């Protein structure tokens, strides 16, 4: 047993942190709310190779493990980057037997979006190639996208109507399920990054803001809520790493691990973001401060790909079926 990242993954995380802090930021996320572009954008993500991390090497990808992608996704989440690596990871699974499309995913020449029924789809804005499960078959096609007022502009949410779908893989339910589990893992990894940053920002402020002659972080009401948020982040990190590892090395464990990670991510990010606002007082409620950007992510992400209640039920079902024995 060895539950830690290896040196390559640590290096990848450090590299990703540098890339994302150069290319994206809460300020860019705020600008996106007022019609600015989502940063770093699909082409930049493709150029640095992040869209193809889990795409096979033979089709221009990195041939990496999901854990390699998860450590990068955490860094993306920390700066609210977009489009989401969830879409790339999920499409990479769906397109494993489709070299041309997989190559187009990795090099960014096509903009993919994966559609779940009638739910708003992640990264629908600007997408040109849509993947969906229709009558048990995996289909690909174009689509029209209806966007609303985005709660979190960096998520590119839209309701999609498919045009000209053609069957790519018949009887693809199992493939689809695996891809969705992989998406849950990567979403939880992005949320890990966002939640961790929200706690960091809250802690930094609690050290410098004074009230009643003391730094507010010395008051237990403030200290303890930040600690609880931090403990949640560390638990989430464990679930994200376990589920990413399971995707590659213990596929039987993936459904349980992915649902657990997603359920925990939904609630952990929400608490971290709400704590971050609360610790900042009135400042935290202003448009200029970053706190609401983490909060927006939290409020959107908790509902994407199933909420905590749905995933608690999945976990319960698997546990009852003997997943833990």
């Amino acid at each position, binding site marked *: *047993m060895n539950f830690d990242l290896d040196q390559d*993954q640590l290096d990848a995380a450090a590299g990703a942190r540098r890339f994302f802090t150069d290319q994206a930021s809460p300020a860019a996320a705020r600008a996106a709310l007022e019609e600015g572009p989502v940063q770093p954008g699909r082409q930049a993500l493709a150029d640095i190779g992040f869209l193809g991390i889990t795409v096979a090497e033979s089709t221009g990808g990195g041939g990496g493990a999901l854990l390699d992608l998860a450590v990068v996704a955490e860094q993306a989440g920390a700066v609210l980057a977009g489009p989401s690596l969830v879409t790339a990871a999920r499409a990479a699974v769906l397109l494993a037997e489709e070299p041309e499309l997989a190559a187009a995913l990795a090099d960014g020449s096509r903009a993919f979006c994966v559609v779940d029924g009638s739910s708003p789809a992640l990264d629908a804005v600007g997408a040109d190639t849509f993947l969906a499960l229709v009558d048990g078959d995996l289909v690909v096609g174009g689509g029209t996208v209806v966007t609303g007022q985005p709660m979190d502009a960096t998520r590119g949410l839209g309701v999609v109507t498919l045009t000209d779908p053609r069957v790519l893989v018949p009887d693809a339910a199992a493939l689809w399920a695996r891809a969705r589990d992989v998406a849950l893992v990567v979403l939880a990894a992005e949320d890990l990054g966002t939640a961790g940053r929200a706690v960091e920002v809250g802690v930094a402020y609690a050290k410098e803001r004074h009230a009643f002659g003391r730094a507010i972080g010395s008051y237990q009401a403030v200290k303890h809520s930040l*600690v609880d948020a931090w403990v949640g982040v560390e638990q989430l990190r464990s679930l994200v790493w376990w589920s990413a590892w399971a995707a590659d090395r213990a596929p039987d464990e993936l459904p349980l691990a992915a649902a657990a990670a997603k359920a925990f991510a939904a609630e952990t990010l929400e608490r971290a973001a709400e704590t971050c606002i609360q610790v900042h007082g009135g400042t935290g409620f202003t448009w200029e401060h970053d706190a609401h950007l983490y909060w927006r992510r939290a409020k959107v992400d908790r509902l994407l790909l199933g909420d905590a209640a749905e995933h608690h039920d999945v976990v*319960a079902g698997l546990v*009852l079926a003997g997943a*833990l024995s």
Partner: protein
Amino acid sequence: MDFDDTPDEAAYRARVRDLLAEHAADLVHLDAGEEAGDAAEQEQALRRTQRVLADAGLVGVAWAAEHGGQAGSLAQQAIVGQELARARVPALINHIGLGMCGPTVVAHGTPAQHERYLARLLRADDVWCQLFSEPASGSDLAALRTTAVRDGEDWVVNGQKVWTTLAHVADFGILLTRTDPGKPKHAGLTMFVVDMHAPGVTVRPLRQMGGQSDFNEVFFDDVRILDSERLGEPGEGWRVALTTLLNERVAVGGGGNDLGLSVESLARLAAAKLPGLTPERRVLARQAVGRAAVAALGNRYTGYRRLTAISQGGLPGPEASAGKLAGTAASRLVSDAGVRLLGDDAVFAVGTGDDGTGEDGAGRWQRNQAWLPGIAIAGGTDEVLRNIIGERVLGLPPEPREDKHRPFDAGSRA
């Protein structure tokens, strides 16, 4: 990253299983939360169990060979823990000795003390307890008042300890005393090994809220302790106690072990009970089971991360406190889900059967539920652990501690 056993670990696990099977007839087998009828019989059975395990090389797995251990890895230690749970062998009777007292004797004891105590501790020939808390000093441990006064080759101890787990069966204890009341409260403390059978030591069991008696009051009336039983230098007791507390953090929940009934036992109970519920209740019950499982798994894997870090040479740091906080919270969710699944049996134990649904089962879940409030207090309360994490891990400013630098006898003792 790899959760699977390495080939070495797999071989070790197989050997542990073989050894447990070989000695099965000499070991106590109980489900978590289950108790034998007679306390004295249970004590003897548990001592025998630990002796058998120690002789088989399954106690003190990660302890150095010179101290009677197996010089094994933490992963091996964790494997033994998993296999003992799988074989339904209850926690070792000397868990305080192994988790807290032993490591303290190792770190601060003289070679003669190592010789005298450690091998017997591993075999539960001597059971140990930790005599720190007092009626007026729990969280604020350094405020303790039990005194030790030098008298020739001896020290003379007077005072009272409380909530001392296992004192009623213990042969030795590590005892934190005040030896210099004129110094600030952390500076005037000294640690000893005390013989629990010495004249002047009185142990009075306390009954806990769940009805059992695991802990005690201990009174010291002119108890004489030889200077050679001192652990560390006079006045260095706080530094010695920190070693104990550091190890306590890992021993209690820091390795991701379940603090109460396991999530696996909840799964068995749920499988038996859920089909009988109305659809509305089933939805709620599944939510509770799912939430408890997620929390327990998060804690388990966080414990694995910590074990990995320690086995790579890291020290058990203040982060381990997070394991106890999260472990306590997860155990409460597991226990609460279990108790609620029992339905009417949740408020009084009825029926028979060993599938977790009958008399034993109901009583087990109820006992576990009544144990968890203690877990959130023992070994540092949730609030104190949050202070430790907030200040030592997150670097938040400390609370004002007005009595820290004042001499103890000049007003530290509020």
